[in-house]
């Protein structure tokens, strides 16, 4: 799709508790071998979009480390390329560090290519979506903007940091409001927006006059409310999760241990690409016992692991027992350690015979580099 620029939007990601205190959600570890950004970037790649931009809000080091030269997510390494959008002014003035200001600061990207359409996807909403038919439909109907939503019956508990769409009989958005958790059945925004370049340019121009602190979400709401443009809405019926808190991070991660759920996200014809690390396969000891868990390469496991997710290069010594926990990469767990309902961040060490027990409703978080 040569006439499309896809933008991975990191501006609207909620915090996952302390897990995102020193890294953006986009490059936060997920299911052992992924970062959240991989899902949107794989959607772009599998949808044959070669021109990709990343709207970085903060902690760019962590994002840049994961993205590298983008070779992992492009089909053709000459034609495919990425642009890091970074708003220097926004760093000094966080109130104005929005996606729309970021694009405005870097708007040469829009004018440097022949792309007529811009597609946005947010890092914190995980789903597999083929963008090609949506873009084709958008073009064929001659729309100014197309947005994607999912109709859910538990909007009081899910997507609570997101926006809801009211949709009229003709399939256009009539109103947008924040999800205040009052409704059960609602159309939640998946924060996928297909916008004509001219429309986006107009939004950027208007933006200063409307409210300089508005982001894309608020601007779309403003344009809808004032009937300045018509926003076409398309329903998505597949698996989608909005990662908006540490509790939900744990809950949705564990949900994917169910193979029936995992198969909705990991499909043979829709590979999820990620940065790879040349780590050896996972090695298990004679006394190891593993059930219902994701284990990443590079792990050396001699103890027990149940209902857990273990990232790259984790060492678990003999006699250790890990239950309902997420262990991020390069963590060492000593002998006879017992962990349950714990999230342990990278490079931490839990020395022999320690016990850390949270409970499913109140997961304990151990910060990066902790030594216990």
């Amino acid at each position, binding site marked *: 799709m040569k006439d499309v620029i896809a933008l991975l939007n990191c501006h609207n990601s909620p915090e996952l508790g302390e897990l995102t205190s020193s890294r953006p959600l986009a490059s936060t570890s997920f*299911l*052992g*071998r*992924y970062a959240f950004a991989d899902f949107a970037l794989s959607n772009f790649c599998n949808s044959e979009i070669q021109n990709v931009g990343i709207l970085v809000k903060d902690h760019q080091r962590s994002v840049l480390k994961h993205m590298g030269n983008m070779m992992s997510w492009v089909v053709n390494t000459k034609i495919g390329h990425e642009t890091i959008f970074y708003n220097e002014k926004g760093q000094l003035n966080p109130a104005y560090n929005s996606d729309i200001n970021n694009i405005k600061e870097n708007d040469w990207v829009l004018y440097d290519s022949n792309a007529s359409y811009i597609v946005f996807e947010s890092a914190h909403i995980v789903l597999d979506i083929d963008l090609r038919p949506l873009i084709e439909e958008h073009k064929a109907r001659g729309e100014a903007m197309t947005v994607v939503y999912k109709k859910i019956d538990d909007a009081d508990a899910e997507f609570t940091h997101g926006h809801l769409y009211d949709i009229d009989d003709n399939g256009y958005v009539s109103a947008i409001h924040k999800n205040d958790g009052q409704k059960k059945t609602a159309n939640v925004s998946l924060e996928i927006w297909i916008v004509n370049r001219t429309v986006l340019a107009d939004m950027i121009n208007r933006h200063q006059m409307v409210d300089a602190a508005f982001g894309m979400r608020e601007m779309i709401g403003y344009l809808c409310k004032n009937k300045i443009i018509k926003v076409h809405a398309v329903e998505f019926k597949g698996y989608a999760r909005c990662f908006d808190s540490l509790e939900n991070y744990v809950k949705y991660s564990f949900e994917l*241990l169910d*193979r029936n759920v*995992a198969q909705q996200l*990991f499909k043979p014809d829709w*590979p*999820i*690409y*990620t940065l*790879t*690390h*040349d780590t*050896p*396969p*996972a*090695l*298990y*000891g*004679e*006394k*190891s*016992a*593993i*059930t*219902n*868990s*994701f*284990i*990443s*390469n*590079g792990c*050396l496991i*001699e103890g027990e*692991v149940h209902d857990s997710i273990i990232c790259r*290069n984790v060492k678990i010594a003999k006699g250790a027992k890990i239950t309902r926990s997420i262990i991020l990469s390069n963590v060492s767990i000593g002998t006879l350690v017992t962990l349950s309902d714990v999230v342990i961040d990278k490079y931490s060490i839990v020395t022999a015979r320690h016990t850390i027990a949270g409970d499913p409703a109140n997961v304990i978080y151990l910060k990066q580099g902790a030594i216990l």
Partner: protein
Amino acid sequence: MSTKLAAMILAGGKGTRLQALTKKVAKPAVSYGGKYRIIDFPLSNCANSGITCVGVLTQYESSELNTYVGNGEKWGLNGVRSLTSVLTPKQTDEGSNWYLGTADAIYQNIDWLDRVEPEYVLILSGDHVYSCTYDAMLKKTIDENSDCTIAVYPVAWEEASRFGILVTDKNDNITDFQEKPKKPISNLASMGIYIFPYKVLRAELIADAKDPASEHDFGKNIIPKMMAEKKKMVAYTYHGYWKDVGTVASLHQANMDLLITGDSTTNLYTVQGDNRIYSEDTHSSPQYIGPKAKLTDSLINQGAVVLGEVDHCVVSGETLIEEGASCKNSVIMNGAIIRKGALVEDSIIGPDTLIDTDEKVNLEHDGIALVVNGKAAQ
């Protein structure tokens, strides 16, 4: 361009004794250690030795191997000042020839070497499993001013007749050489790893090519001839894990050596960045171990789904071991499916092989069984 040391990896052999495993791929491309192919080891060793120019000589069933080697990117051998070339037999002005032997394969690529302008040439075999750098061997070649340095490995006496055997004096000068002798007089086996000054090698190859009686083989012709000419021949003794995975049983054993209970000193889990073995990183989904799985003493790659019982096994990616299936002391290669109730022992289950419901494989423990049927891909 010019370079200190260029490596030539001989990867053209069929590996007949690996039976069905090498029916469609060359031996260096055979799967090993859950994630690797055998040729990852010499190529990673080259990368870790700082070698930047590598020629990979292929011939038998070369398309998969050629594709795999590509431009050397998987081993980082595609950087600036780097060159990885797949060198296959070709048509030339003088006609077309297959590689007639190991020496002929290098001889036919003298043009490539001339362009690379190496001071020294390292000749490697593409089908050995070991992790090392060649720095010390090169240093010895330079220090001793040798015409040929041969890496040697002390093998068990009863195995010595399978190898080229060297006899050395106390200064490591090679005094005698026997190719696969019936009655070995030493247990120092040639590893098929040589370093020559390029000028010496070039002259020897050209002379050998003109000799109609020659089989154009390093072990059979070049080395004995250089010995006869009283060239300075030096042995470099290698210490560490080294395996020529020539047979189904030795491939199985080399896999089992990687387990915690195995005896490989090839530690795949060394501190990061320290002589790692590089390979193709697939975009597999995470490795999943099921609710009723029993998993002990094994090496499992990403993309594997283990729902049954696995003990003392090496399991590659994209495999499925169903609930109620059991695998023991076996190698399960990429894409294989073991259905429920199936029992697999002492086996190598080849790529994309299907072991059907309740099927029994080698429960009688008759050596190491090899099953290759490709049915899982259908």
